[in-house]
């Protein structure tokens, strides 16, 4: 049973809206460059500035990108799709309408699986649609927030950047699932290479819709929409907070209001945003400056063929090889690690060992030395060699890690490093037996206790043998021998 917050007999219902900035070379409807961090108002043209007379023309690569996202999320790529105008006034929206999609989005009815502590949940994807991003506002004034502003400054560099909106079904039930969903979307988008999906930079953004209902109820409770979630951790915390807030509200006799709430990472609470007198009327109508999109079977086939192995498939593949779920998950996050793993396994190395080394020592090394994997000489063949040395008893588990670090530092191949650092184990049975006999002879009290059934002295005795052999005996073998000699 998935651990749940203390929400009594309430159930949370969560849906997530995700926006992904596509990192195409040019913007969605014009040829301006898509660039992060450019000087303000230097990547603008009549179209993305909303100058009179300007017109939009859709970016082919962006359409390809959204179709790939949809396909990767198991969606149907619809045969006929339209752009619509979403009409509202806001200063960072140059035309005071946004070109978006309304009732005929490009992708519908998908699903993905998310893993939380070994439990799999299926999350439906309602739709994936194409739209354009807005400019950025800087509210200048006392508090830095909109409420205290003295005036506002506008930068339209981001206006017109291709934006993909992914809407999930309200299938998520816990904050952990919400986070897992967010993380999986991020992995998929990155694996596709369409966006770097960095939450901290805004190339991926989440809004969470949260409601609660008494367990066993079929109808949905009133939801609130939570915005300003800038990390996966925030997503989880914000959802958790909102669930609790709603439960407490209902339990104290109040009612949840349909509203937008702003998450504050520092204070750890959501606050209601200024409510409007009238809800927005977007007056959607089909965009007359654009023609509809038709996707035929040939196009669908090309999109399907262009997909890389998706993270879920990679993870499943590793689990099938005996790698545990968590390790498989960590491995699957990093394409570079996956490449190395697949090389090693293809050449016959033990998958479990490789997975543990890659997600353990290799990742730790990269972090410590602050380098990328391809900056080290580590090859799949090294892992193969290392695994066989461990299998033959030449290296203990601890020694293998040290050898790995040595290989990554460029000291040579595994056998060379192991010899240089004098890490090769003694696995010659005769040598070890002699050492064991000697230690047992010197420690009759401990031996007696062991014979009597007390397991405590075993570790001490193994340690003595290790010391006698200069740490080079295979501790597993030593332990086995001692146990055998002191049995019965």
């Amino acid at each position, binding site marked *: 049973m998935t651990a749940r917050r203390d929400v009594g007999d309430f159930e949370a219902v969560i849906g997530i809206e995700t926006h992904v900035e596509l990192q195409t070379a040019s913007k969605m409807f014009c040829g301006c460059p898509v660039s992060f961090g450019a000087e303000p108002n230097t990547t603008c043209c009549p179209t993305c500035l909303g100058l009179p007379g300007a017109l939009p023309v859709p970016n082919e690569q962006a359409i390809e990108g959204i179709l790939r996202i949809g396909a990767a999320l198991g969606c149907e790529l619809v045969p006929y799709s339209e752009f619509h105008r979403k009409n509202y006034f806001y200063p960072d929206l140059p035309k005071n309408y946004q070109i978006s999609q309304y009732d005929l989005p490009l992708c519908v009815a998908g699903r993905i699986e998310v893993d939380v502590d070994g439990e799999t949940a299926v999350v439906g994807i309602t739709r994936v649609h194409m739209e354009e991003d807005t400019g950025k506002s800087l509210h200048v004034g006392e508090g830095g927030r909109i409420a205290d502003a003295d005036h506002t400054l506008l930068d*339209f560099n981001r206006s017109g950047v291709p934006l993909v909106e992914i809407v999930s079904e309200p299938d998520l039930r816990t904050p952990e699932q919400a986070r897992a969903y967010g993380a999986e979307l991020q992995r998929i988008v990155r694996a596709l290479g369409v966006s770097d999906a960095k939450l901290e930079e805004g190339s991926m953004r989440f809004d969470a819709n949260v409601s609660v209902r008494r367990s066993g109820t079929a109808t949905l409770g009133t939801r609130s929409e939570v915005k300003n979630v800038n990390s996966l951790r925030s997503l989880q915390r914000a959802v958790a907070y909102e669930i609790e807030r709603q439960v407490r509200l209902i339990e104290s006799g109040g009612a949840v209001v349909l509203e937008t709430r702003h998450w504050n990472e520092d204070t750890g609470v959501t606050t209601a945003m200024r409510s409007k007198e009238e809800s927005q009327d977007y007056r959607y109508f089909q965009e007359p400056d654009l023609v509809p999109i038709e996707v035929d079977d040939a196009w669908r086939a090309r999109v399907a063929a262009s997909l890389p192995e998706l993270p879920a498939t990679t993870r499943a593949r590793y689990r099938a090889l005996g790698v545990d779920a968590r390790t498989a998950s960590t491995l699957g996050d990093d394409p570079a690690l996956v490449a190395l793993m697949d090389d090693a396994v293809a050449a016959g190395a033990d998958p479990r060992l490789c997975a543990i080394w890659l997600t353990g020592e290799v990742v730790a090394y990269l972090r410590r030395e602050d380098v990328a994997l391809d900056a080290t000489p580590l090859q799949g063949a090294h892992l193969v060699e290392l695994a066989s040395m461990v299998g033959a008893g030449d290296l203990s588990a601890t020694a293998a890690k040290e050898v790995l670090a040595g290989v990554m530092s460029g000291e040579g191949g595994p056998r060379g490093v192991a010899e240089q650092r004098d890490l090769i184990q003694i696995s010659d049975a005769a040598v070890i037996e002699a050492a064991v006999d000697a230690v047992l002879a010197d420690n009759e009290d401990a031996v007696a206790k062991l014979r009597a059934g007390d397991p405590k002295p075993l570790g001490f005795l193994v340690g003595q043998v290790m010391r006698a052999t200069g740490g080079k005996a295979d501790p597993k073998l030593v332990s086995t021998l001692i146990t055998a000699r002191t049995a019965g």
Partner: protein
Amino acid sequence: MPVDIDIAKVARLARLALDEEALARYGEQLGAILEHAERVQALPTEGVPPTSHPLPMRNTFRPDVVRAPLDRDEVLAQAPDVEGPYFRIPPVLGEAPETARE
């Protein structure tokens, strides 16, 4: 019968600051125009698909190629108010609706 319209609401949606007198005048005029426009409602159109486009075209795209943007000077040249490299406007009262922004 002239159509009755909540003209104040329409003016708010369209961001037009019209005074009471203007609102009343336009409300009346719109009512009269719509009375004529309502003629279309008399036509039976069941099963008739709407036309948004006179053209049968589909799939018009452009390749993902960068085209030189305007110089910032040109971008800001027509702006009523500028601060450094930015457009400057009075404080914004409301939060932006739906679309996620940073």
